[in-house]
């Protein structure tokens, strides 16, 4: 009987630049159903953080409630974590981020946690451009309560029990674009070659980064007629571009064909390369992104890849001009600058 992962790892597994093996980014063994897309996303997060040489203690992982929100236990076990109330992860992330801007914030949510109970929180985190990666593990159903349709289930999608969803699904990508999100992407749990570089790029982005990851629920939503099954997604997926992520410290060695490639430099100096772009596509053009998204919807395609990025994005701290230092590093003299400072301040109002 195996509920415990064996301790042995591949003896030749290399360590990254900060001295950690990939296994140092793992979590406990997953209790989700075998074959759950969420586990693949956890695997992608592990791989991305390992390859980006992120020290685990510099990451704070936050989640709400649901199958998706259980996953922070299954990756980055050496990082900070907060499993919050249903749909309230953005508030907790906002508070944590305001208190300590030095950490990397990784929020994990699901379609219920984001598009239903947490919708109000989600939209305001976007509006404020909170510096975080917000991953939605989107399976179009409530897997934890036996698979009822969620708010992201497409109209016409057939559930495991055979009922057809009569309601329009919420498109989180379209909505985020509308709300002014500065990094918007969609991906598929079964395509790590796309998801891993997207996660890396999102972690390098300064501001709110949404990755809506289609993540099939093998138990309740992987049936014929479902629009979020492995087979359906694979049949209808339309990638905007092949994506490559080059960290700042590495030289770009790959040569790309002229005209078909866009390189977007991100806040930390790393570069996202988008290859084989469809129709002269530019991910920095928000209106084009919105049009392309609508077009895909009309064509019945599932558009994946980096839909929109604003490399000039200013995050919440910059907007409100907060202190550059984490609150826990502020000394008494910083917090109580004394009577003379108060005097100067008061003078301004006289």
């Amino acid at each position, binding site marked *: *009987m*195996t*509920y*415990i*992962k*064996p*301790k*042995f*790892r*591949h*003896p*030749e*597994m*290399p360590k990254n630049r900060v001295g950690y093996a*990939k296994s140092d980014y793992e979590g406990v*063994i*997953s209790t989700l*159903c*075998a*074959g*759950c*897309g969420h*586990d*693949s996303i*956890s*695997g992608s997060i592990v791989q991305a953080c390992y390859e980006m040489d992120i020290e685990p203690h510099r990451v704070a992982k936050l989640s709400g409630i649901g199958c998706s929100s259980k996953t922070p236990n299954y990756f980055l076990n050496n990082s900070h974590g907060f499993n919050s109330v249903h749909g309230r992860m953005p508030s907790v992330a906002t508070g944590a981020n305001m208190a300590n801007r030095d950490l990397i914030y990784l929020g994990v949510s699901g379609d219920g946690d984001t598009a239903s109970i947490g919708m109000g929180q989600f939209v305001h985190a976007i509006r404020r451009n909170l510096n975080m990666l917000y991953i939605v593990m989107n399976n179009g159903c409530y897997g934890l309560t036996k698979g009822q349709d969620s708010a992201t289930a497409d109209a016409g999608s057939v559930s495991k029990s055979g009922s057809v969803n009569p309601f329009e699904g919420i498109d989180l990508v379209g909505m985020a674009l509308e709300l002014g999100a500065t990094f918007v992407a969609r991906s598929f*749990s*079964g395509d*790590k070659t796309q998801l891993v570089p997207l996660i890396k790029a999102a972690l390098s982005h300064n501001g709110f980064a949404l990755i809506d990851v289609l993540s*099939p629920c*093998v*138990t309740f939503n*992987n049936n014929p007629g479902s629009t979020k099954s*492995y*087979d359906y997604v*694979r049949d209808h997926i339309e990638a905007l571009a092949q994506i490559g992520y080059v960290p700042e410290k590495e030289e770009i060695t790959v040569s790309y064909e002229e005209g078909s490639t866009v390189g977007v430099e991100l806040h930390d100096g790393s570069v996202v390369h988008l290859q084989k772009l469809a129709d002269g596509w530019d991910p920095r053009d928000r209106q084009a992104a919105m049009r392309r998204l609508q077009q895909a919807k009309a064509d019945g395609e599932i558009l994946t890849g980096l839909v929109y990025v604003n490399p000039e994005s200013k995050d919440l701290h910059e907007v409100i001009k907060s202190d550059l230092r984490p609150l826990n590093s502020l000394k008494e003299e910083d917090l109580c600058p004394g009577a003379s400072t108060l005097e100067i301040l008061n003078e301004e109002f006289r």
Partner: protein
Amino acid sequence: MKPTDIQNPEYFHKVVDCQYACPAHTPVPEYIRLIAAERYTEAYMVNWESNVFPGVLGRTCDRPCEPACRRGRVEEEPVAICRLKRVAADNKGDVKSMMPQGPFAPNGKKIALIGGGPAALTVARDLTPLGYEVHLYDDQNKGGGMMRSQIPSFRLPDSVLSEEVGFILDLGIHTHFNTRVESLKDILSQGYDAVFVGTGAPKGKDLADLPGRWDAQANIHIGIEWLANVAFEHTSKIGKKVIVLGGGNTAMDCCRTSRRLGGEDVKVVVRSPRKEMKASPWEIEDALHEDIPILENHVPKSFVSENGVLKGMYFEKVEAIYDNGKRKLVPTGEPDIFIEADDVLVAIGQENSFPWIERDLGLEFNKWGLPVLDEKTFQSTLPKVFFGGDAALGPKNVITAVAQGHQAAVSIDLYCNQQSLYERPSPYTNLISQKMGIHEWIYDSDVTTDIRYKVPHADKSLTLKDRKKEVELGFSQDTGFKEAQRCLNCDVQTVFTEDKCIECDACADICPTTCITFTINGEEDDLRSRLNAPAHNVEQELYVSDTLKTGRVMIKDENVCLHCGLCAERCPTSAWDMQKYLYSVTKAGCQSSILETI
């Protein structure tokens, strides 16, 4: 790469590293699980069927299985396979009732076995139940061959050896002990349908040309002859100062035996550097433990004696120079070293010797004095005569002799039935799913991190006083269980079914040792460079699936798979399954395997 053909019995056989490395292909993980289940009798029988002498081999085997053990690639040390075999032998119950029960209906064929060692006894065991009238000739007064004459009792008690030899003789063998065969022609004239020669490598090498060799003959002994004399109690003492020449296991047995017969200052002297010694590391360790120093890089120069009494030996100091992989021993120029000695034991190798085989019978010998054989069938150029053990392809070890004995028995049976010797029976194989529930397997899939357990030894103060007192005490049942749990169950195979796979990546994500990769197919070298984990060990296969729906293939590097079953547990569609693979070399007459009943 082409999809792996798992229908080929050799593919999964190779994954079971220990069994594959064993010359007799003993189903190691199967008997280790039986030991863990306290089914010692069955564990013994699984061994007995394939290696005939579990008790003997559990103490003395050269253990080719252990360096091959996958555990040694995952952590420091392999499973103590050899000593677990002994646990089965030490704790077995009534095994005799599980062995073939005579009398057997005669098939009218009569065969002669020359020599009573492991190879010939294996042939006897395999052929007697088929109705052959088996005649065994040996010049010793008991069966066992070199296992009796050359392996000292402190490593292999007489009771253990005699019991296992007895199991075979009791099948109804016609024994002719104390009978030295002086002529093959004579044997052939006695109407045998086939003759098996298992006379070992009975001649110890000498230093006949070394100055002074013949001046003190009473104090200069040939290692294997001296050991035989000790075993048969013709020799019971040796001088206080002893030099043992040679670096093999015979030398280790000689020096340790000397310590028990009165040798106080016993030294092993070898020509080459110590790391090149042929003796097993554990034998060397045991010799050192008994206060026997090993002097390396000493080349014997001369024997020194006075009035026919040995005084010692001169040695030249050398150093090893390696040039293009070739080693040369170059004198250092230091003055020769004199080492005092009352007795010298020469244990520098052994040779085959067939003075009793007439050269005009049509049985050809090669330039090394070995019979010309077909290495698959062990048939000589005289079709009726077969060879096995050290007599066949030169000195190896007991387990190799047993393996050759099995093959020679198959050949003899085919020969006596006028069948082609090349249409040999395929191995018995079976692949059975181990699934019981979502997280439950028939086998214990948990992987323990315990490090290798040490076998307790009897105290030196006791063992050096009595040459028959066994040094190794063997694992207790408790320790045996713990050591057995270290086995990774490599025979429980990860079997992949392409058309069930939905490519959810769950297996690749969960695999602790990152064995599994889904990627676009390519040539092997290219694939090995693109896997999720380094895959440099080209001796281990890549398990490649057929093309999957997305155009990719599943590649599993067998190298460090823990056989923990997590890939199968995390697979939503049972595209992965853990299936126990049994492989047994089919014996003469296609007798059914014990594996079919356990």
